[in-house]
């Protein structure tokens, strides 16, 4: 019986995993190999087990790595704070309009991110609709600007990752059984206590999923920094772009990518431990 169930598991896993092995693992393994090579496009690359590149890359780009981690953390927390009440309202108060509201949260993301980010650039322009008006009213000094500052990049990241946080939160919240809350009420729990001890606890899988879907891509993002950022907002994604496309330093770009991935996995593992685990990682 047990063996049969395990077999089912394997058959469920195989199609997706095979796809990933073919089109993710193989390219990634070749990336790993490249990171240990030395040379240049013209002279050719040679596999030299150059493990020294990893500490080198860490040292050289520690600022950008830390900054990306920090931005990722800020964005995850901010989107969580913004999206949780939103998901809660839709799940618990949405009623017949649940799906409509949910779609409304997702809909802006059917418009290409390039358009969305460019429109934000327009909105945040020094003399644009927002800042220009505030300057006219005297609220802001004439030299004030947002574009090029970290706040603009963070704002862009938060905006772009909001649905990544909201969706899993909604999915987890929506499945919570209302009668449990009634039960808590019957046991004379306050609303706040009922929320924390019942609702929030039960929504933790959604919190976990949303955090992952937000933190992981946000740390590696380069688009927001490129469009909305300035010289001091460089994220690790921008560095990798530059190393790969401009410097043609493929080993460095590959090594940096692995450092990034390792850092993310580490953070995710720690997070899973803190949140209490096994249940959450399945």
């Amino acid at each position: 019986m047990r063996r049969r169930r395990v077999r089912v598991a394997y058959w469920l896993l195989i199609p997706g995993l095979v796809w990933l092995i073919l089109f993710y693992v193989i390219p990634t393994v070749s990336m790993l190999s490249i990171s240990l090579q030395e040379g240049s496009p013209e002279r050719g690359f040679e596999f030299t087990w150059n493990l020294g590149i990893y500490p080198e890359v860490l040292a050289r780009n520690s600022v950008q790595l830390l900054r990306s981690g920090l931005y990722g953390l800020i964005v995850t927390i901010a989107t969580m704070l913004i999206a949780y009440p939103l998901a809660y309202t839709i799940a618990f108060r949405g009623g017949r309009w649940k799906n409509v509201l949910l779609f409304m949260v997702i809909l802006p993301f059917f418009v290409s991110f390039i358009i969305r980010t460019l429109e934000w650039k327009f909105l945040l322009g020094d003399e644009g609709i927002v800042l220009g008006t505030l300057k006219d009213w005297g609220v802001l000094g004439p030299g004030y600007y947002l574009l090029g500052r970290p706040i603009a990049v963070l704002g862009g990241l938060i905006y772009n990752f909001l649905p990544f946080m909201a969706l899993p939160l909604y999915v987890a919240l929506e499945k919570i059984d209302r009668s449990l809350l009634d039960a808590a009420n019957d046991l004379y729990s306050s609303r706040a206590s009922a929320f924390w001890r019942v609702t929030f606890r039960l929504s933790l899988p959604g919190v976990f999923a949303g955090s992952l879907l937000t933190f992981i891509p946000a740390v590696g993002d380069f688009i927001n920094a490129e469009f909305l950022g300035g010289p001091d907002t460089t994220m690790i994604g921008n560095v990798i772009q530059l190393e790969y496309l401009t410097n043609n330093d493929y080993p460095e770009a590959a090594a940096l990518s692995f450092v990034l991935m390792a850092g993310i996995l580490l953070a995710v593992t720690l997070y899973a431990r803190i949140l209490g685990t096994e249940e959450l990682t399945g």
Partner: protein
Amino acid sequence: MGEGSLDGMLGFDRRISRRELLRRAGRGSIYMGVMAFLAACGVEAQRREGGGQLQPLPPKAGELVMANWPLYIDKDGPVSPTVESFEKENDVEMQYDVVINDNEEFFGTIRAPLSAGQASGYDIIVVTDWLIDKMNRFGYLERIHHEELPNFEANVSDKFRDPWFDPNNEHSIPWAAGITGIGYDISLTGRELDSIFDLFDTEFAGRVGMFAEMRDTFNFALLANGADPTQATIEEVQAAQQLLLEHRGNFRGFYGNDYADQLATGSLAVSMAWSGDIFALQLDNPNLRFFIPKEGANRWSDNMAIPVGAEHPTDAHLFMNHVYDPRIATNITEWVWYESPVQGVQEMIQEDIAEGGPRYLQLLADSELVFPTEETNAQTHPYKRLEEEEEQAWNDLFQEVIQA
């Protein structure tokens, strides 16, 4: 569980023990790992041999795929008259893709197939002069059959013959040329500017734009230090880097194409700029000015080339010839506002003005940026030809400036 089981239904009656499955998976993944490893191991030098020889031209295919920068060809609403006239006159179906936004980014996407001996997907690409030089070093460009380009031979300005990056135009012919100078909004600066050091003026702190393009920005810094960009030594470049690092706090950012709308909307007061862009923006905002700094500026050209292994080279030559017709070249210039390599364009514009063209044509015909004089030319410098090692050294230095 119930009577049947899910895997029974999936047709799985033959038992595969878990151990067996794992063993097979293990063997399989080792095999794949080795394959991948071998595939990746020892990537050879990416040079290709094909680029050196003149390949015979196949018969006309009736198809053409071209990649170009945005806003670089005439437009009448959704379509380009030049493309349409070419298609009609030559009975060729042409796909004109505006996919090049950055030299390095575009090169990065076609490199892998080119180095493996495969076609890139494009018959004509338009890239900046230094990239032509670089691609030549790798042998990634086909030799051009000049006998198929009578219009080029007859009409190209001497200035563009036999350039520094492609002796005898063996692998490329120019599409358009321009100048990198400085643009500014006089209503924001309050005065006229004339020097590269105006970019470092703290009066404009936080409102200055520089280019993320290494060659353009380093050239400016070299010129500011009084060095000759085409002969710059590594020490001079290091000094240029120091100059940029010193004034880094003044810059709002290092831009690509997007400096222009920042200048137009007032986020930037002063910026490094390309001649044609400012000309275009001036039509909407007469406060914008462009100048060549007294220390000097950069001149560059964007060139048509045929990547190795292109599928329709004959049709490519037909198009290249087509755009060297002075009438077609004039149509393009009247729309693109960058310098044309074709002789006689300035005169044709005058004719169009006489026949009652739009107002801006007069500005165009008089513009020293679109039709530089000898004097203007003398003030501008091309890029230095960089071999791989030098390019890497310069790139490393530049990275420290733009990514902190």
